[in-house]
């Protein structure tokens, strides 16, 4: 990544205040995606500052994620929820500040590596202690309810957007950081697992997806509740068919990473559309309820999909000698 800070260059106005870009390195595709991730972290931090997060509701919500998990997973969740319950105001303020700092750290170029590394550690901890590993071991994981856990996607994005050029010739941002094959493997495993989750009983039961849509409508604005309730009504008793269609679409997206660029672009568009649909099904992360800690998996899946967008090769520029 072009992380250099062009300092000391003459400019008539400071960076960030003028139309010129002197003094600031240009935003390449990876930097734009990093900033997108930074925005979501800032949003998370501010959501964590919501009034309800300073009440007993927050640790109670965390404790719920222990249900159905094996004892070795559930034990630490219960312990941390109990600890937070006793010091909810202080600890929640710290959590919110950490997430806000992660967002601002990603935004500020000198700290981008530190912030991304810290975000990986933080995400994995929250994935376990806050989301119960996304319900994967509890059998409740479904793409519609945010599996494999939205916060895991933050860690994956931090790795894929890491400011390094292991494979500078890779066609996508994700491939540049980790290498083409590892990036493709990550894509295949992620979207493939989403397809598999869509076929689990938690999704394929007759009223499963319908019930999740109904849950998404709770506390949502009228227009969003209308979408979710109508979708729930249409899919009621058609859970199996809906889950099979969803699984097929997710599987198509998963394998498309090995297809030529034009087909991959089409699959990425499909992935973004699916992410948007899942986000609506999740009630836009229940952002309007006052109890959301993140925007759920939809925006993160879309951001991740864009990291795999194959760039158009630039034609070689021939320098004309004067």
């Amino acid at each position, binding site marked *: 990544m072009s992380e250099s800070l062009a300092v000391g260059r003459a*400019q008539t106005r400071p960076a*960030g205040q003028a139309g010129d870009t002197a003094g*600031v390195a240009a935003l390449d595709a990876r930097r734009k995606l990093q900033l997108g991730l930074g925005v979501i972290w*800032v949003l998370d931090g*501010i959501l964590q500052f919501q009034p309800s997060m300073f009440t007993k509701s927050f640790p109670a919500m965390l404790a719920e994620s222990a249900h159905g998990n094996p004892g070795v997973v559930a034990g630490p969740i219960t312990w941390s929820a109990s600890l937070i319950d006793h010091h909810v*105001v202080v600890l929640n303020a710290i959590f919110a500040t950490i997430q806000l700092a992660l967002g601002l750290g*990603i935004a500020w170029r000198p700290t981008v590596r530190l912030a991304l590394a810290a975000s990986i550690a933080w995400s994995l901890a929250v994935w376990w202690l806050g989301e119960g590993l996304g319900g994967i071991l509890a059998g409740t994981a479904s793409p519609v309810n945010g599996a494999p856990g939205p916060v895991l996607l933050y860690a994956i994005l931090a790795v894929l957007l890491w400011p390094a050029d292991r494979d500078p010739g890779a066609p996508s941002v994700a491939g540049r950081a980790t290498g083409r094959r590892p990036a493709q493997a990550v894509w295949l495993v992620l979207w493939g697992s989403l397809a598999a989750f869509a076929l689990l009983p938690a999704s394929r039961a007759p009223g499963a997806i319908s019930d999740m849509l109904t849950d998404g409508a709770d506390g949502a604005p*009228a227009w969003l509740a209308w979408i979710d309730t109508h979708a729930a009504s249409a899919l009621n008793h058609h859970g199996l068919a809906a889950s099979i269609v969803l699984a097929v679409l997710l599987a198509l997206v998963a394998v498309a990473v090995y297809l030529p660029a034009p087909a991959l672009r089409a699959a990425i568009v499909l992935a973004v559309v699916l992410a948007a649909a899942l986000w609506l099904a999740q009630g836009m992360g229940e952002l309007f309820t*006052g109890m959301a800690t993140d925007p759920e998996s939809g925006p993160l899946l879309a951001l991740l999909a864009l990291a795999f967008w194959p760039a158009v090769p630039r034609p070689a520029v021939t320098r004309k000698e004067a």
Partner: protein
Amino acid sequence: MGGPAWLTAIFAAASLAVAVYCAGRLVVARRGHRPTELDTDGAHVIMGVAMAGMLVSGLRTLPSTIWEVVFAAAAVWFGYRMLQARRGAQSSPWCSSHPLPHLVECAAMVFMFLILPAAAGAAASSVSMTMTATESRFSFLTLPLAVYLFGYVVWLGDRVTLHVPALALAAPAGDTRPAIGSGSGFVATQSYLAPRCATICKITMGITMGYMLILML
């Protein structure tokens, strides 16, 4: 406005600090002929005072109606500046060269005062704001406004340089061009006034306003 009292007090203090600092910038810029974005600093002065009043009832100064008019006027100004920029008009170092975020900020202030009058009314109590059925029709605007402001904050963060930018201090020998800003009533003879502090003010205002909007979700 909802939220723990100490937290809203911190945000109110931050917005007031920005208001005081930006007022100081206006004075220093006037006296020292150092260029600064007069419209942005001016907007932050009034915005900081208004936001502090929304967050902490004891800091309320003017009725909501007056604030609505003030921020509507500011929004018109930044909208005019944006149109000018689109028409290719030469930018002045005394005015914001990126008026769109400030237009959105002013619009968000009008939105909070006008569409959600509970924002000011509920400030007297510590309970969360509740919206009426009419107001809830506009709640879908709250999230995009907040996300836009967070995007602006992150964009600004990306552009904060580690060291003091070398401004146009050292004009080439023999350069007889007029000083920047000489056509706007002021004569700029020195470097841009504390650019990184100005950016930090914008970031602070963006985060605080985003917090207020999130409380209204």
